């Protein structure tokens, strides 16, 4: 959710010459998603999932390009994109560690997991390690409460966490992840 309509695009970056919406991304969306919906706009979520997967974040320029591609205004794209937590407007580390903080996880020791992350990686939720390997977030219920405390690392769920073992597991991850964000 994001009901605070802050200007998260303020650090508009210089436009780069090659487009974010490459011909490959466009044809993927055109072929796979446009036929599914009566309106192109409905392909907005699939499009931005693809952009996130490809670049790890959403550059302001990608929002501009998406508006043209989907045939809606930039404001409409921005309005939608900024609403969703998974669409991040800032680059993050190679591994995004989303630690669940909702009730079942708090009951089962989410705090210890979070403290361990702070201790081992020296970052607070929202921050990225200096080597760009990890970004830490606290998120709401991941729908895996029977495995509390749990965390989503990129696309993979890790459940029944033992803080120390989880930290070691993260440290042992290769520098380049196999799955996207």
């Amino acid at each position: 959710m994001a009901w605070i309509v802050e200007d998260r695009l303020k650090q508009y970056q210089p436009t780069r010459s090659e487009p974010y919406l490459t011909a490959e991304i466009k044809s993927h969306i055109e072929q796979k998603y446009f036929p599914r919906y009566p309106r192109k706009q409905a392909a907005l979520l699939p499009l931005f999932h693809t952009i996130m997967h490809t670049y790890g974040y959403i550059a302001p320029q990608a929002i501009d390009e998406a508006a043209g591609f989907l045939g809606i205004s930039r404001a409409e794209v921005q309005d939608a994109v900024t609403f969703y937590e998974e669409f991040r407007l800032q680059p993050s580390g190679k591994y995004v560690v989303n630690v669940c903080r909702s009730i079942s996880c708090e009951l089962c020791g989410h705090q210890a997991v979070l403290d361990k992350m702070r201790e081992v990686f020296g970052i607070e939720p929202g921050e990225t390690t200096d080597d760009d390997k990890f970004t830490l977030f606290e998120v709401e219920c991941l729908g895996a409460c029977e495995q509390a405390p749990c965390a989503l690392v990129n696309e993979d769920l890790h459940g029944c966490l033992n803080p120390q073992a989880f930290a070691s597991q993260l440290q042992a991850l290769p520098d380049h992840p196999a799955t996207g964000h």
Partner: protein
Amino acid sequence: MAFAGPVLLKRIPDDPAKRKLINIDEYMATGGYESLRKAQAMTPEQIIQLVIDSNLRGRGGAGFPCGSKWKFLPKDLHPRYLAVNFDESEPGTFKDRYLTEYDPQVLLEGIAIAAFANRITTSYIYIRGEYHLQAKILEKALEEAYAKGIFGQKIPGTEIVHNCYVHRGAGAYICGEETGLLESLEGKRGWPRIKPPFPAIAGAFAKPTIINNVETLACLPYIIEYGADWFKSMGTASSAGPKLFGVSGLVHKPGVYEEELGIKMSTLIEKYAGGIKGGKYRAAIPGGVSMGVLGTDQYDAELDFDIGKKYNVLGLGTAGVIVMTDKTDLVVMLRNIVRFFAHESCGQCTPCREGTAWMHKMLNRIVAGYGKPRDFDLLMEVGLSMGSMPGTTICGLADGANWAVRTFLEKFPEDFKARLKSDHVQGVTLDAQAAAAV
């Protein structure tokens, strides 16, 4: 009441080591898609009547009768859509994930039956973004089902080609609210719509739309196969059928268990979930945090759609039971719940947007030791003021916050009052300290 054994979970072994994804061939070898064939030999009206007779009520939280909902669709208006609600973001809820992770075809068969009965043109499975693995499982299951001609072909007896797609959300609880879901499906922010018009009249892309929960749809093949009387032989007069219960929190064996509606929470916890861990039972949430809390003397509450009236909670919700003990800090738990609502409020309605944020601040202050006696009444007042039932907000998210706060305060007042200091002693300085603390 007679529950002979798992229905929805019959293909999923109890032993975690034996659980595996069931592909379409295995599904068909165990009777899968027989019900669809059977349904296609019936008329749509007969199927809808059967679903009405079965007394199947929605498993997504509100418990609305499924067949009656279908009947709201206007006649002969096409295209029409089915939106499958697989957003499952209510804390304490993971049943739809568990079912679909192992037996995705039962959901697809349910969708195909609902589509046949309602002459649906396109079905969208709206799955929350965090369910990466489950989205892939569903995509694969859909591929298999397309290959067998379950989707992408004319609905028998009509010119309507029915397609089914997975549509991934992107991290927003409010997209589980049915009209928030539709907005999100259309590529907009998930702001719930003001009703009427209801989705059955003008839903997705302004066309007639049915929204059903995953588990609701997964019941359909079994209702077709065994009939309405069989379905009603389980559960209670108002609450028919088998039900998936998620149990999490302080129990030895958290997980998804199937039983008939109306079983006692104590039975669920002791017989299935391995009993309470690390203390004595003190409180539990019956069905996701929106429903409020059950008190210490309500351990034996029957888990069915009457639970709201009988035990002073909002309702059965998603039947995701969250267990707390005598060692749990209930003030901290309420803070957790209220923070969730404050974070997930979409912000359209002032009582919800401001109220949840305000209550979160107050609870932070109370937990930090700077609560004042008047905070108790103030929390209650703010809580009670919000929701679609007092009529101050567009959707039910605010009712969830309302019921969480009111039931915690009503059932466990001493926990809160013990934390509240007198305003008079410290007066103004207290406010300054409190402000610094939160």
